Protein backbone atom coordinates (compact mmCIF):
# COMPACT_ATOMS: atom_id res chain seq x y z
CA UNK A 1 0.00 0.00 0.00
CA UNK A 2 1.20 3.51 -0.74
CA UNK A 3 2.70 5.15 2.36
CA UNK A 4 0.26 8.05 2.32
CA UNK A 5 -2.72 5.80 1.86
CA UNK A 6 -1.51 3.47 4.60
CA UNK A 7 -1.07 6.38 6.99
CA UNK A 8 -4.57 7.65 6.17
CA UNK A 9 -6.03 4.19 6.69
CA UNK A 10 -4.25 3.65 10.01
CA UNK A 11 -5.17 7.12 11.20
CA UNK A 12 -8.79 6.58 10.17
CA UNK A 13 -9.05 3.27 12.06
CA UNK A 14 -7.26 4.69 15.09
CA UNK A 15 -9.47 7.77 15.36
CA UNK A 16 -12.65 5.80 14.72
CA UNK A 17 -11.77 3.17 17.34
CA UNK A 18 -10.73 5.78 19.92
CA UNK A 19 -13.77 7.95 19.30
CA UNK A 20 -16.31 5.13 19.48
CA UNK A 21 -14.55 3.66 22.53
CA UNK A 22 -14.80 7.08 24.24
CA UNK A 23 -18.50 7.38 23.41
CA UNK A 24 -19.04 3.84 24.66
CA UNK A 25 -17.16 4.39 27.90
CA UNK A 26 -18.63 7.84 28.66
CA UNK A 27 -21.98 6.90 30.26
CA UNK A 28 -20.45 4.09 32.33
CA UNK A 29 -17.51 6.21 33.46
CA UNK A 30 -19.71 9.20 34.35
CA UNK A 31 -22.23 7.06 36.21
CA UNK A 32 -19.48 5.19 38.08
CA UNK A 33 -17.64 8.42 38.86
CA UNK A 34 -20.80 10.04 40.22
CA UNK A 35 -21.75 6.98 42.23
CA UNK A 36 -18.32 6.73 43.85
CA UNK A 37 -18.21 10.47 44.52
CA UNK A 38 -21.67 10.82 46.01
CA UNK A 39 -22.69 7.52 47.54
CA UNK A 40 -21.45 5.64 50.57
CA UNK A 41 -22.22 1.93 50.65
CA UNK A 42 -20.77 -1.24 52.15
CA UNK A 43 -17.94 -2.66 50.08
CA UNK A 44 -17.23 0.66 48.37
CA UNK A 45 -13.47 0.12 48.56
CA UNK A 46 -13.86 -3.24 46.80
CA UNK A 47 -15.79 -1.57 43.98
CA UNK A 48 -13.16 1.19 43.77
CA UNK A 49 -10.41 -1.41 43.48
CA UNK A 50 -12.35 -3.35 40.87
CA UNK A 51 -12.86 -0.17 38.82
CA UNK A 52 -9.13 0.59 38.97
CA UNK A 53 -8.07 -2.97 38.09
CA UNK A 54 -7.60 -2.43 34.33
CA UNK A 55 -5.10 0.32 35.18
CA UNK A 56 -2.62 -2.17 36.63
CA UNK A 57 -3.52 -5.41 34.84
CA UNK A 58 -1.33 -6.13 31.81
CA UNK A 59 -3.40 -5.11 28.76
CA UNK A 60 -2.65 -8.56 27.32
CA UNK A 61 -4.44 -10.09 30.32
CA UNK A 62 -7.48 -7.91 29.62
CA UNK A 63 -7.31 -8.89 25.96
CA UNK A 64 -7.14 -12.55 26.84
CA UNK A 65 -10.15 -12.27 29.20
CA UNK A 66 -12.14 -10.59 26.43
CA UNK A 67 -11.03 -13.27 23.99
CA UNK A 68 -12.26 -16.00 26.35
CA UNK A 69 -15.48 -14.08 26.99
CA UNK A 70 -16.33 -13.66 23.30
CA UNK A 71 -14.88 -16.94 22.00
CA UNK A 72 -17.37 -19.13 20.11
CA UNK A 73 -17.99 -21.26 23.23
CA UNK A 74 -17.40 -18.44 25.76
CA UNK A 75 -20.04 -16.89 28.06
CA UNK A 76 -20.82 -14.23 25.43
CA UNK A 77 -19.87 -16.32 22.40
CA UNK A 78 -21.91 -17.40 19.39
CA UNK A 79 -22.83 -20.81 20.92
CA UNK A 80 -24.27 -19.23 24.05
CA UNK A 81 -25.99 -16.22 22.44
CA UNK A 82 -27.22 -17.98 19.31
CA UNK A 83 -25.68 -15.32 17.06
CA UNK A 84 -22.22 -13.96 16.36
CA UNK A 85 -21.73 -10.78 18.42
CA UNK A 86 -19.12 -9.73 15.85
CA UNK A 87 -16.45 -8.67 18.30
CA UNK A 88 -13.40 -10.84 17.72
CA UNK A 89 -11.03 -9.70 14.97
CA UNK A 90 -13.22 -6.77 13.99
CA UNK A 91 -12.91 -3.05 14.62
CA UNK A 92 -15.65 -3.48 17.22
CA UNK A 93 -13.28 -5.74 19.15
CA UNK A 94 -10.65 -2.98 19.02
CA UNK A 95 -13.28 -0.57 20.36
CA UNK A 96 -14.22 -2.90 23.20
CA UNK A 97 -10.59 -3.54 24.18
CA UNK A 98 -9.81 0.19 24.13
CA UNK A 99 -12.96 0.99 26.12
CA UNK A 100 -12.14 -1.50 28.87
CA UNK A 101 -8.60 -0.20 29.20
CA UNK A 102 -9.72 3.47 29.12
CA UNK A 103 -12.61 3.01 31.56
CA UNK A 104 -10.73 3.33 34.88
CA UNK A 105 -8.95 6.51 33.80
CA UNK A 106 -12.22 8.12 32.76
CA UNK A 107 -14.15 6.90 35.82
CA UNK A 108 -11.52 8.09 38.30
CA UNK A 109 -11.20 11.49 36.64
CA UNK A 110 -14.99 11.83 36.50
CA UNK A 111 -15.16 10.96 40.19
CA UNK A 112 -12.69 13.73 41.01
CA UNK A 113 -14.74 16.13 38.88
CA UNK A 114 -17.95 15.29 40.74
CA UNK A 115 -16.18 15.50 44.09
CA UNK A 116 -15.14 19.02 43.11
CA UNK A 117 -18.78 20.12 43.09
CA UNK A 118 -19.96 21.20 46.53
CA UNK A 119 -22.82 18.80 47.38
CA UNK A 120 -24.38 21.61 49.41
CA UNK A 121 -25.05 23.44 46.13
CA UNK A 122 -27.10 20.43 45.03
CA UNK A 123 -28.85 20.44 48.39
CA UNK A 124 -29.65 24.13 47.99
CA UNK A 125 -31.11 23.46 44.54
CA UNK A 126 -33.26 20.69 45.99
CA UNK A 127 -34.30 23.04 48.81
CA UNK A 128 -35.45 25.56 46.24
CA UNK A 129 -37.72 22.91 44.77
CA UNK A 130 -35.59 21.99 41.76
CA UNK A 131 -36.11 18.30 40.87
CA UNK A 132 -33.23 15.82 41.31
CA UNK A 133 -32.76 15.37 37.56
CA UNK A 134 -32.84 19.10 36.88
CA UNK A 135 -30.41 19.63 39.73
CA UNK A 136 -28.10 17.06 38.14
CA UNK A 137 -28.47 18.54 34.69
CA UNK A 138 -28.29 22.24 35.57
CA UNK A 139 -26.06 22.32 38.64
CA UNK A 140 -23.92 19.19 38.99
CA UNK A 141 -23.14 18.53 35.35
CA UNK A 142 -22.19 22.09 34.33
CA UNK A 143 -20.05 22.58 37.43
CA UNK A 144 -18.27 19.26 36.88
CA UNK A 145 -18.24 19.84 33.10
CA UNK A 146 -14.59 20.70 32.57
CA UNK A 147 -13.43 17.80 34.71
CA UNK A 148 -15.76 15.45 32.85
CA UNK A 149 -14.45 16.62 29.50
CA UNK A 150 -10.93 16.03 30.80
CA UNK A 151 -12.03 12.51 31.79
CA UNK A 152 -13.28 11.83 28.29
CA UNK A 153 -10.17 13.35 26.71
CA UNK A 154 -8.03 11.05 28.86
CA UNK A 155 -10.14 8.08 27.80
CA UNK A 156 -9.72 9.10 24.16
CA UNK A 157 -5.98 9.46 24.65
CA UNK A 158 -5.68 6.08 26.31
CA UNK A 159 -7.73 4.47 23.54
CA UNK A 160 -5.47 6.07 20.91
CA UNK A 161 -2.44 4.30 22.28
CA UNK A 162 -4.00 0.95 23.16
CA UNK A 163 -1.98 -2.06 21.96
CA UNK A 164 -1.90 -5.17 24.17
CA UNK A 165 -5.61 -5.88 24.55
CA UNK A 166 -6.41 -4.77 21.00
CA UNK A 167 -3.93 -7.06 19.29
CA UNK A 168 -5.38 -10.08 21.08
CA UNK A 169 -9.09 -9.25 20.65
CA UNK A 170 -9.04 -7.56 17.23
CA UNK A 171 -5.81 -8.81 15.68
CA UNK A 172 -3.68 -6.59 13.47
CA UNK A 173 -5.59 -6.44 10.19
CA UNK A 174 -4.55 -3.52 7.94
CA UNK A 175 -7.45 -1.31 7.00
CA UNK A 176 -9.78 -2.97 9.53
CA UNK A 177 -8.25 -3.25 12.97
CA UNK A 178 -4.75 -1.86 12.53
CA UNK A 179 -4.39 1.18 14.74
CA UNK A 180 -1.34 3.45 15.11
CA UNK A 181 0.11 1.39 17.95
CA UNK A 182 -0.25 -1.81 15.91
CA UNK A 183 1.14 -0.18 12.78
CA UNK A 184 4.27 0.97 14.64
CA UNK A 185 4.75 -2.59 15.88
CA UNK A 186 4.27 -3.88 12.30
CA UNK A 187 6.81 -1.47 10.83
CA UNK A 188 9.40 -2.40 13.45
CA UNK A 189 8.81 -6.09 12.75
CA UNK A 190 9.30 -5.41 9.03
CA UNK A 191 12.42 -3.35 9.72
CA UNK A 192 10.94 -0.24 8.09
CA UNK A 193 12.48 2.39 10.34
CA UNK A 194 11.19 5.31 8.29
CA UNK A 195 7.63 4.00 8.35
CA UNK A 196 7.83 3.34 12.07
CA UNK A 197 9.15 6.86 12.74
CA UNK A 198 6.37 8.39 10.66
CA UNK A 199 3.74 6.60 12.72
CA UNK A 200 5.55 7.47 15.95
CA UNK A 201 5.57 11.13 14.88
CA UNK A 202 1.83 11.09 14.24
CA UNK A 203 1.22 9.28 17.56
CA UNK A 204 3.30 11.94 19.39
CA UNK A 205 1.34 14.76 17.76
CA UNK A 206 -2.00 13.20 18.68
CA UNK A 207 -0.87 12.49 22.24
CA UNK A 208 0.35 16.08 22.60
CA UNK A 209 -2.98 17.54 21.47
CA UNK A 210 -4.94 15.25 23.79
CA UNK A 211 -2.77 15.92 26.85
CA UNK A 212 -2.69 19.65 26.18
CA UNK A 213 -6.50 19.62 26.04
CA UNK A 214 -6.69 17.65 29.31
CA UNK A 215 -4.35 20.11 31.02
CA UNK A 216 -6.42 23.05 29.81
CA UNK A 217 -9.67 21.44 30.91
CA UNK A 218 -8.38 20.29 34.27
CA UNK A 219 -7.06 23.74 35.16
CA UNK A 220 -9.49 25.45 37.53
CA UNK A 221 -11.44 28.27 35.96
CA UNK A 222 -10.43 31.63 37.34
CA UNK A 223 -13.14 34.01 38.41
CA UNK A 224 -13.63 36.93 36.07
Amino acid at each position, binding site marked *: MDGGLQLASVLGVTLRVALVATVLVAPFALATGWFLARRAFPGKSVVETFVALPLVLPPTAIGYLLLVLFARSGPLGESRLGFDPGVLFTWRGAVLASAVVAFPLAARTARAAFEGVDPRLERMAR*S*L*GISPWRTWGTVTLPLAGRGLLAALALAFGRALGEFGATVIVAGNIPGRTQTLALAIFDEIQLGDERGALTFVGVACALAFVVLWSVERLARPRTAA
Partner: protein
Amino acid sequence: MSRFEIDVDLPLGRIALAVRCTSDARALGIFGPSGAGKTSLVEALAGWRRPRAGRIALDGEVWFDAEHGIDRPAGERRVGHVPQDLLLFPHWTVERNVRAGAARGGSESTLQRAIDVLEIGSLLNQMPPTLSGGERQRVALARALASGPRVLLLDEPLAALDLSLRRRLLPYLARVREAFDVPLVLVSHDPTEILALCDECWRLEEGRLVEHGAARRVLLAAARQAGTFENVMRGRAVATPDGGARVALAPGVELAVAGLREGAGADVLIALRAEDILVATGELPAISARNVIPAVIADVRIEGEDAWVEARVADDVHVTVLLTPSAIRELSLATGSAVRLVVKAQSCRVLARS
Protein backbone atom coordinates in the same frame (compact mmCIF):
# COMPACT_ATOMS: atom_id res chain seq x y z
CA MET B 1 -48.29 35.03 63.83
CA SER B 2 -46.50 31.74 63.19
CA ARG B 3 -45.80 29.11 65.74
CA PHE B 4 -42.67 27.02 65.53
CA GLU B 5 -42.65 23.79 67.53
CA ILE B 6 -39.13 22.46 67.71
CA ASP B 7 -38.06 19.28 69.42
CA VAL B 8 -34.77 18.11 67.99
CA ASP B 9 -32.45 15.36 69.18
CA LEU B 10 -29.47 15.19 66.87
CA PRO B 11 -26.04 13.66 67.60
CA LEU B 12 -23.19 16.00 66.58
CA GLY B 13 -19.92 14.19 67.15
CA ARG B 14 -18.80 14.88 70.70
CA ILE B 15 -22.06 16.58 71.71
CA ALA B 16 -25.72 16.01 71.00
CA LEU B 17 -28.09 18.75 70.00
CA ALA B 18 -31.12 18.52 72.25
CA VAL B 19 -33.47 21.46 71.88
CA ARG B 20 -37.12 21.47 72.79
CA CYS B 21 -39.07 24.70 72.72
CA THR B 22 -41.78 26.61 70.90
CA SER B 23 -41.74 30.12 69.56
CA ASP B 24 -44.41 32.53 68.40
CA ALA B 25 -41.89 35.24 67.68
CA ARG B 26 -41.96 37.00 64.37
CA ALA B 27 -38.17 37.01 64.52
CA LEU B 28 -36.37 34.42 66.58
CA GLY B 29 -32.65 34.73 67.25
CA ILE B 30 -30.51 31.66 67.89
CA PHE B 31 -27.48 32.81 69.84
CA GLY B 32 -24.48 30.97 71.16
CA PRO B 33 -20.75 30.35 70.74
CA SER B 34 -19.21 28.38 67.88
CA GLY B 35 -19.93 24.69 68.17
CA ALA B 36 -23.10 25.21 70.19
CA GLY B 37 -25.20 23.54 67.49
CA LYS B 38 -26.86 26.65 66.02
CA THR B 39 -26.19 25.76 62.39
CA SER B 40 -27.16 22.13 62.94
CA LEU B 41 -30.45 23.27 64.44
CA VAL B 42 -31.19 25.47 61.43
CA GLU B 43 -30.19 22.67 59.05
CA ALA B 44 -32.56 20.33 60.85
CA LEU B 45 -35.33 22.92 60.37
CA ALA B 46 -34.42 23.25 56.69
CA GLY B 47 -34.54 19.49 56.20
CA TRP B 48 -30.80 19.22 55.55
CA ARG B 49 -30.19 17.11 58.64
CA ARG B 50 -32.37 14.37 59.94
CA PRO B 51 -32.75 14.38 63.74
CA ARG B 52 -32.47 11.09 65.59
CA ALA B 53 -35.72 11.84 67.36
CA GLY B 54 -38.16 14.66 67.87
CA ARG B 55 -40.71 16.72 66.05
CA ILE B 56 -40.64 19.90 63.99
CA ALA B 57 -43.81 21.73 63.02
CA LEU B 58 -44.69 25.17 61.75
CA ASP B 59 -48.24 26.35 62.40
CA GLY B 60 -49.32 22.78 62.99
CA GLU B 61 -47.86 21.55 59.70
CA VAL B 62 -45.55 18.70 60.67
CA TRP B 63 -42.21 18.72 58.86
CA PHE B 64 -40.59 16.03 60.90
CA ASP B 65 -41.92 13.53 63.36
CA ALA B 66 -39.64 10.61 64.19
CA GLU B 67 -42.40 8.77 66.02
CA HIS B 68 -44.77 8.83 63.04
CA GLY B 69 -42.07 8.45 60.40
CA ILE B 70 -42.70 11.89 58.89
CA ASP B 71 -39.78 13.68 57.25
CA ARG B 72 -40.84 16.17 54.60
CA PRO B 73 -38.10 16.75 52.02
CA ALA B 74 -36.31 20.10 52.12
CA GLY B 75 -37.94 21.19 48.86
CA GLU B 76 -41.43 20.76 50.29
CA ARG B 77 -40.90 22.75 53.48
CA ARG B 78 -40.89 26.10 51.65
CA VAL B 79 -38.02 27.43 53.66
CA GLY B 80 -35.99 30.43 52.55
CA HIS B 81 -32.58 29.29 53.68
CA VAL B 82 -29.51 31.53 53.59
CA PRO B 83 -26.59 29.44 54.84
CA GLN B 84 -23.31 30.91 56.02
CA ASP B 85 -21.57 30.21 52.74
CA LEU B 86 -24.61 31.49 50.81
CA LEU B 87 -24.36 28.74 48.17
CA LEU B 88 -25.08 30.94 45.19
CA PHE B 89 -24.81 28.95 41.97
CA PRO B 90 -21.52 30.28 40.60
CA HIS B 91 -22.26 29.41 36.96
CA TRP B 92 -25.60 31.25 36.85
CA THR B 93 -26.19 34.98 36.60
CA VAL B 94 -27.60 36.80 39.59
CA GLU B 95 -30.98 36.89 37.84
CA ARG B 96 -31.02 33.14 37.26
CA ASN B 97 -29.98 32.57 40.86
CA VAL B 98 -32.85 34.70 42.13
CA ARG B 99 -35.30 33.13 39.67
CA ALA B 100 -34.21 29.69 40.89
CA GLY B 101 -35.77 30.74 44.16
CA ALA B 102 -39.02 31.55 42.37
CA ALA B 103 -39.05 28.12 40.66
CA ARG B 104 -40.88 26.61 43.62
CA GLY B 105 -43.87 28.86 43.02
CA GLY B 106 -42.86 32.24 44.40
CA SER B 107 -44.76 34.92 42.50
CA GLU B 108 -43.22 37.36 40.02
CA SER B 109 -44.29 40.25 42.25
CA THR B 110 -42.51 38.74 45.26
CA LEU B 111 -39.41 38.30 43.13
CA GLN B 112 -39.54 41.93 41.96
CA ARG B 113 -40.10 43.16 45.49
CA ALA B 114 -37.11 41.14 46.72
CA ILE B 115 -34.98 42.67 43.96
CA ASP B 116 -36.20 46.16 44.85
CA VAL B 117 -35.93 45.89 48.63
CA LEU B 118 -32.43 44.46 48.43
CA GLU B 119 -31.40 46.86 45.65
CA ILE B 120 -29.87 44.25 43.38
CA GLY B 121 -31.54 45.38 40.14
CA SER B 122 -28.24 46.57 38.70
CA LEU B 123 -26.52 43.27 39.49
CA LEU B 124 -28.89 40.94 37.64
CA ASN B 125 -26.58 40.25 34.69
CA GLN B 126 -23.48 39.69 36.78
CA MET B 127 -22.02 36.36 37.83
CA PRO B 128 -21.76 35.66 41.60
CA PRO B 129 -17.95 35.35 41.66
CA THR B 130 -17.70 38.96 40.42
CA LEU B 131 -19.81 40.35 43.28
CA SER B 132 -18.57 41.85 46.52
CA GLY B 133 -19.33 40.10 49.81
CA GLY B 134 -22.21 42.44 50.61
CA GLU B 135 -23.72 42.08 47.15
CA ARG B 136 -23.53 38.29 47.33
CA GLN B 137 -25.27 38.47 50.68
CA ARG B 138 -28.13 40.51 49.26
CA VAL B 139 -28.51 38.21 46.26
CA ALA B 140 -28.72 35.15 48.54
CA LEU B 141 -31.37 36.93 50.60
CA ALA B 142 -33.30 37.87 47.47
CA ARG B 143 -33.21 34.28 46.25
CA ALA B 144 -34.54 33.06 49.59
CA LEU B 145 -37.32 35.66 49.55
CA ALA B 146 -38.22 35.03 45.90
CA SER B 147 -39.06 31.46 46.78
CA GLY B 148 -42.13 32.69 48.67
CA PRO B 149 -40.98 31.03 51.89
CA ARG B 150 -43.09 30.29 54.94
CA VAL B 151 -40.07 31.02 57.09
CA LEU B 152 -36.67 32.61 56.49
CA LEU B 153 -33.70 30.80 58.00
CA LEU B 154 -30.66 33.05 58.11
CA ASP B 155 -27.52 31.32 59.34
CA GLU B 156 -24.91 33.88 60.37
CA PRO B 157 -25.82 35.93 57.31
CA LEU B 158 -23.25 38.62 58.01
CA ALA B 159 -20.52 36.59 59.67
CA ALA B 160 -18.21 36.52 56.65
CA LEU B 161 -18.20 40.31 56.31
CA ASP B 162 -16.06 42.88 58.04
CA LEU B 163 -17.55 44.99 60.78
CA SER B 164 -18.32 48.08 58.71
CA LEU B 165 -20.02 46.01 55.99
CA ARG B 166 -21.99 44.15 58.63
CA ARG B 167 -23.27 47.42 59.99
CA ARG B 168 -24.20 48.59 56.48
CA LEU B 169 -26.08 45.37 55.70
CA LEU B 170 -28.00 45.20 58.93
CA PRO B 171 -30.57 47.75 57.69
CA TYR B 172 -31.25 45.49 54.68
CA LEU B 173 -32.15 42.66 57.04
CA ALA B 174 -34.34 45.03 59.02
CA ARG B 175 -35.97 46.15 55.78
CA VAL B 176 -36.63 42.52 54.81
CA ARG B 177 -38.22 41.95 58.19
CA GLU B 178 -40.53 44.91 57.68
CA ALA B 179 -41.31 44.47 53.97
CA PHE B 180 -42.06 40.76 53.97
CA ASP B 181 -44.55 39.14 56.26
CA VAL B 182 -42.36 36.09 56.80
CA PRO B 183 -41.24 34.79 60.18
CA LEU B 184 -37.52 34.83 60.54
CA VAL B 185 -35.01 32.63 62.36
CA LEU B 186 -31.64 34.33 62.65
CA VAL B 187 -28.54 32.47 63.79
CA SER B 188 -25.83 34.76 65.03
CA HIS B 189 -23.11 35.07 67.61
CA ASP B 190 -23.35 38.85 67.35
CA PRO B 191 -25.76 40.25 69.94
CA THR B 192 -26.12 43.47 67.97
CA GLU B 193 -27.66 41.63 65.02
CA ILE B 194 -30.06 39.68 67.20
CA LEU B 195 -31.09 42.69 69.23
CA ALA B 196 -31.62 44.75 66.10
CA LEU B 197 -33.84 42.17 64.44
CA CYS B 198 -35.30 39.66 66.87
CA ASP B 199 -38.01 39.79 69.50
CA GLU B 200 -37.09 36.48 71.05
CA CYS B 201 -33.78 34.71 71.56
CA TRP B 202 -32.75 31.15 72.28
CA ARG B 203 -29.27 30.75 73.72
CA LEU B 204 -27.55 27.47 72.94
CA GLU B 205 -24.48 26.05 74.61
CA GLU B 206 -22.97 22.69 73.73
CA GLY B 207 -26.17 21.60 72.04
CA ARG B 208 -28.45 22.58 74.92
CA LEU B 209 -31.00 25.35 75.10
CA VAL B 210 -29.76 27.15 78.20
CA GLU B 211 -32.03 30.17 78.07
CA HIS B 212 -34.89 31.56 76.02
CA GLY B 213 -37.11 34.57 76.20
CA ALA B 214 -37.08 38.22 75.23
CA ALA B 215 -33.95 38.88 73.16
CA ARG B 216 -32.76 41.74 75.32
CA ARG B 217 -33.03 39.81 78.57
CA VAL B 218 -31.32 36.69 77.21
CA LEU B 219 -28.45 38.60 75.65
CA LEU B 220 -27.91 40.83 78.65
CA ALA B 221 -27.55 37.76 80.84
CA ALA B 222 -25.25 36.13 78.27
CA ALA B 223 -23.00 39.16 78.03
CA ARG B 224 -22.65 39.32 81.79
CA GLN B 225 -22.08 35.62 82.09
CA ALA B 226 -19.53 35.43 79.30
CA GLY B 227 -17.54 38.22 80.85
CA THR B 228 -16.84 39.71 77.46
CA PHE B 229 -18.13 42.98 78.82
CA GLU B 230 -18.04 43.15 82.55
CA ASN B 231 -20.37 46.12 82.42
CA VAL B 232 -23.62 46.09 80.49
CA MET B 233 -25.86 48.99 81.43
CA ARG B 234 -29.28 50.06 80.36
CA GLY B 235 -29.79 53.70 79.55
CA ARG B 236 -31.80 56.18 77.58
CA ALA B 237 -30.46 58.51 74.93
CA VAL B 238 -30.79 62.17 75.86
CA ALA B 239 -30.12 65.27 73.83
CA THR B 240 -27.43 67.69 74.97
CA PRO B 241 -27.55 71.46 74.50
CA ASP B 242 -24.68 71.31 72.01
CA GLY B 243 -26.68 69.01 69.74
CA GLY B 244 -24.82 65.85 70.76
CA ALA B 245 -26.24 62.76 72.39
CA ARG B 246 -25.50 61.10 75.68
CA VAL B 247 -26.91 58.15 77.52
CA ALA B 248 -28.57 58.70 80.86
CA LEU B 249 -27.82 55.73 83.14
CA ALA B 250 -29.62 57.20 86.12
CA PRO B 251 -30.85 60.65 87.15
CA GLY B 252 -27.81 62.89 86.97
CA VAL B 253 -25.50 60.21 85.57
CA GLU B 254 -24.87 60.57 81.87
CA LEU B 255 -22.39 58.91 79.56
CA ALA B 256 -20.95 60.29 76.33
CA VAL B 257 -20.90 57.43 73.82
CA ALA B 258 -19.06 57.60 70.53
CA GLY B 259 -21.15 56.73 67.49
CA LEU B 260 -24.44 57.13 69.30
CA ARG B 261 -26.99 58.09 66.69
CA GLU B 262 -30.17 57.39 68.58
CA GLY B 263 -32.55 60.23 69.10
CA ALA B 264 -33.60 61.38 72.55
CA GLY B 265 -35.75 58.84 74.34
CA ALA B 266 -34.34 55.71 72.66
CA ASP B 267 -33.48 52.86 75.01
CA VAL B 268 -29.98 51.51 74.57
CA LEU B 269 -27.68 48.93 76.11
CA ILE B 270 -24.16 50.13 76.71
CA ALA B 271 -21.26 47.71 77.16
CA LEU B 272 -18.01 48.68 78.79
CA ARG B 273 -14.93 46.61 79.53
CA ALA B 274 -13.58 46.75 83.10
CA GLU B 275 -10.03 47.40 81.89
CA ASP B 276 -11.15 50.44 79.86
CA ILE B 277 -12.09 52.44 82.97
CA LEU B 278 -9.65 54.63 84.92
CA VAL B 279 -10.07 55.58 88.56
CA ALA B 280 -8.99 59.03 89.71
CA THR B 281 -8.79 60.72 93.07
CA GLY B 282 -8.15 64.43 93.66
CA GLU B 283 -8.15 67.10 90.97
CA LEU B 284 -7.97 66.04 87.35
CA PRO B 285 -5.95 67.94 84.75
CA ALA B 286 -7.47 68.73 81.35
CA ILE B 287 -8.25 65.33 79.90
CA SER B 288 -9.43 63.97 76.57
CA ALA B 289 -11.79 61.40 78.08
CA ARG B 290 -15.38 62.57 77.65
CA ASN B 291 -16.71 60.96 80.83
CA VAL B 292 -15.67 61.77 84.36
CA ILE B 293 -18.26 60.22 86.66
CA PRO B 294 -18.30 60.55 90.46
CA ALA B 295 -18.57 57.20 92.23
CA VAL B 296 -18.10 55.52 95.59
CA ILE B 297 -16.15 52.31 95.88
CA ALA B 298 -18.37 49.51 97.13
CA ASP B 299 -15.85 46.70 97.11
CA VAL B 300 -12.20 45.95 96.34
CA ARG B 301 -11.07 42.43 95.60
CA ILE B 302 -7.44 41.46 94.88
CA GLU B 303 -6.97 38.31 92.79
CA GLY B 304 -3.27 37.80 92.05
CA GLU B 305 -2.21 40.50 89.58
CA ASP B 306 -5.79 41.77 89.20
CA ALA B 307 -7.61 44.17 91.45
CA TRP B 308 -11.37 44.20 90.89
CA VAL B 309 -13.12 47.33 92.05
CA GLU B 310 -16.87 47.63 92.34
CA ALA B 311 -17.88 51.30 92.09
CA ARG B 312 -21.37 52.63 92.68
CA VAL B 313 -22.33 55.55 90.45
CA ALA B 314 -26.03 55.58 91.32
CA ASP B 315 -28.37 53.55 93.51
CA ASP B 316 -28.83 50.81 90.95
CA VAL B 317 -25.85 51.44 88.71
CA HIS B 318 -22.63 49.66 89.63
CA VAL B 319 -19.53 49.55 87.50
CA THR B 320 -16.79 46.94 87.64
CA VAL B 321 -13.26 48.26 87.12
CA LEU B 322 -10.07 46.27 86.64
CA LEU B 323 -6.95 47.85 88.16
CA THR B 324 -3.61 46.62 89.45
CA PRO B 325 -2.90 46.01 93.16
CA SER B 326 -0.23 48.74 93.06
CA ALA B 327 -2.83 51.27 91.85
CA ILE B 328 -5.06 50.29 94.77
CA ARG B 329 -2.16 50.88 97.19
CA GLU B 330 -0.96 54.17 95.70
CA LEU B 331 -4.45 55.69 95.56
CA SER B 332 -5.38 54.16 98.96
CA LEU B 333 -8.59 52.83 97.48
CA ALA B 334 -10.93 51.09 99.89
CA THR B 335 -14.60 50.53 100.38
CA GLY B 336 -16.27 53.92 100.82
CA SER B 337 -13.59 55.92 98.97
CA ALA B 338 -14.99 58.73 96.82
CA VAL B 339 -13.45 58.55 93.35
CA ARG B 340 -14.08 59.58 89.80
CA LEU B 341 -14.34 57.08 86.98
CA VAL B 342 -12.74 58.21 83.75
CA VAL B 343 -14.15 56.63 80.60
CA LYS B 344 -13.44 57.40 76.98
CA ALA B 345 -16.52 57.83 74.82
CA GLN B 346 -14.84 55.42 72.36
CA SER B 347 -14.72 52.69 75.01
CA CYS B 348 -18.50 52.65 75.33
CA ARG B 349 -20.12 50.21 72.93
CA VAL B 350 -23.74 50.41 71.96
CA LEU B 351 -24.83 46.80 72.31
CA ALA B 352 -28.40 47.26 71.34
CA ARG B 353 -30.91 49.77 70.20
CA SER B 354 -34.63 49.65 70.45
